[in-house]
């Protein structure tokens, strides 16, 4: 294309050099993780290949067996918990955001101005400042150490509402909604057959962002949950790490922590790579207005 063709050779060369360097930098820890998951404890802390290359011994299978049996295979339970919390929390946040975004963008009602300002203000309230108060409230209500303690607070996603609101303003023409109503569609039918299909890119984006947010959230489950069977994989691995750094003499599960970390990052990376065409357009919605 004429917009990119007339560049001088050195400039392009410099661009590729920068990209190559960035790729190495961003891949380095993941490459280390992949290599380290094939090592046992001895190789991890002083093997023949160094930190960034494979050891003579190959222990990936042993490590996978290890994470499946260590502490009665609680690792897979953690991974299943992570999926459950992320999916239910993410779906809840998305449903709430879609309804609110549609309501704010296409209906005039009393108090909407203040209400909308509250949403925008809430985007700027740091989530961790809310976590300890929510813990105290849940603790008084006997809700700590239950799945609800992690799932319910995840439903709050002011940024998701904001993205939906901005997107719905342009993606839903009033004429189309009115045409559907004149043809006799009720409000629920309008949402189901007109609104949801048109909002699809925004829905996938908000769903992905809130699933990742819940999956990666550490502080909330960290303080809410004490029962090992309820932990998500992030907090579980953190507990193994605490165990490994304090326990002397006893077995230190470092190779299991590393392998468990690798297994747990694979699903999200696959989700992102396979859903690219949906989120790529949507991720900038908030800033394009």
């Amino acid at each position, binding site marked *: 294309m004429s917009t990119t063709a007339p560049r001088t050779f050195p400039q392009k060369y410099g661009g590729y050099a920068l990209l190559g360097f960035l790729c190495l930098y961003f891949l380095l820890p993941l490459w280390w*993780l992949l290599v380290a998951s094939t090592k046992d404890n001895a190789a991890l802390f002083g093997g023949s290949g160094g930190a960034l290359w494979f050891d003579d011994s190959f222990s990936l299978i042993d490590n996978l067996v290890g994470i499946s049996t260590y502490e009665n295979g609680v690792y897979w339970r953690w991974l299943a918990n992570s999926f459950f919390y992320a999916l239910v929390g993410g779906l809840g946040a998305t449903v709430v955001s879609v309804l609110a975004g549609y309501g704010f963008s296409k209906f005039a009602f009393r108090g909407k101005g203040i209400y909308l300002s509250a949403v925008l203000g809430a985007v*700027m309230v740091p989530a961790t400042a809310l976590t300890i108060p929510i813990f105290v409230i849940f603790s008084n209500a006997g809700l700590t150490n239950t799945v609800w303690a992690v799932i319910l607070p995840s439903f709050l996603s002011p940024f998701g509402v904001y993205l939906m609101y901005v997107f719905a303003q342009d993606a839903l*023409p009033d004429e189309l909604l009115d045409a559907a109503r004149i043809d006799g569609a009720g409000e629920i039918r309008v949402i189901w057959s007109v609104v949801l299909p048109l909002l699809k890119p925004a829905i996938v984006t908000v769903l992905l962002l809130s699933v990742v947010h819940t999956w990666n959230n550490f502080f909330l489950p960290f303080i809410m949950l004490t029962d090992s069977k309820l932990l998500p994989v992030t907090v579980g691995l953190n507990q193994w790490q605490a165990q490994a750094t304090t326990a002397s003499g006893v077995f230190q599960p470092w190779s299991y922590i590393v392998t468990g970390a690798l297994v747990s990052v694979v699903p999200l990376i696959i989700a992102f790579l396979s859903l690219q065409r949906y989120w790529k357009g949507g991720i900038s919605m908030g*800033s394009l207005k």
Partner: protein
Amino acid sequence: MVIQNIAAPTPVATRRRRAGRQRRGWIGWILTAPFGAVFIAFLVVPLGYALWMSLRTNSLIGGDRWVGGDNYLKAVQDPLFLKGVVLVIGFTLVLVPIQMLVSLSAALVLDSLTSRFAKVSRLIIFVPYAVPAVIGALMWGFLYSPNFGPLKDLFSLFGADAPDLLSSGNVFGALVNIVTWQWAGYYMIIIYAALKGIDPTVYEAAKLDGASAWQIALRIKVPMVSSALVLILVFAIIGTLQFFTEPQTLRPIAGGSIDAAYTPNMYAYSTAFSYGQFNYALAISFVLGAVVFIGSAIFMTATRKRSGITE
């Protein structure tokens, strides 16, 4: 786009729509009600409760009683809290420019290249966003080790000992690196998408006027994506001030260079859960939340014209 295919509404249709919109006002309330409920339950009530609790104290001797602003007076004179505040502010001042520079330059380079390598590297740079912060900190913790990290091999080539990147002098930079690695790709994607939204004829015009590639990048592309930059800046500042997971994860292996009061959030956590001083912890949470909120509100107002978040 759907919008362009539909003819402008006739006056009759507009009038009917306006009447319909008002008649259906209650539907707007119903649609936004679930959000309203979540908003009240998990934002308004916790904040109100934190404020109320922070004005009280609860001790074995005195019991639960009203102390007014005592917890806040204590906080602003508490050297441990203030040390954490200074740290996160310093952290923000160092981290945010680095993050912006990395993500902006990556986005600008990616925007100017169309090869397969550029596509692949865009994904590679983004991938750390999908890695939980706990695992990011864990991986870098291993890589930082002077005893079994890659630095050991590198330095032993010259017969030297590798430096300890988690020593108290280096741990600040070590954390800056982890957070940059984690978030720069996400910010890069936001800027990249904004760059792709620019009409390419603008570049044509600039080129005809004799602008170089550098000038186009700095004088046209950067100003045109400024709303994305402001959005990222606000996110980065909000995220950095509530810093918790990475230092908490590195703490056990950092050999004392990260203490329990390293950031205000860690201090609030240990005050509440190690010492049981919930009232004081909530005062710290509330101060932190208020500072972040007021700070970003001022920033958003100051950059209102450029910012993405407007009504």
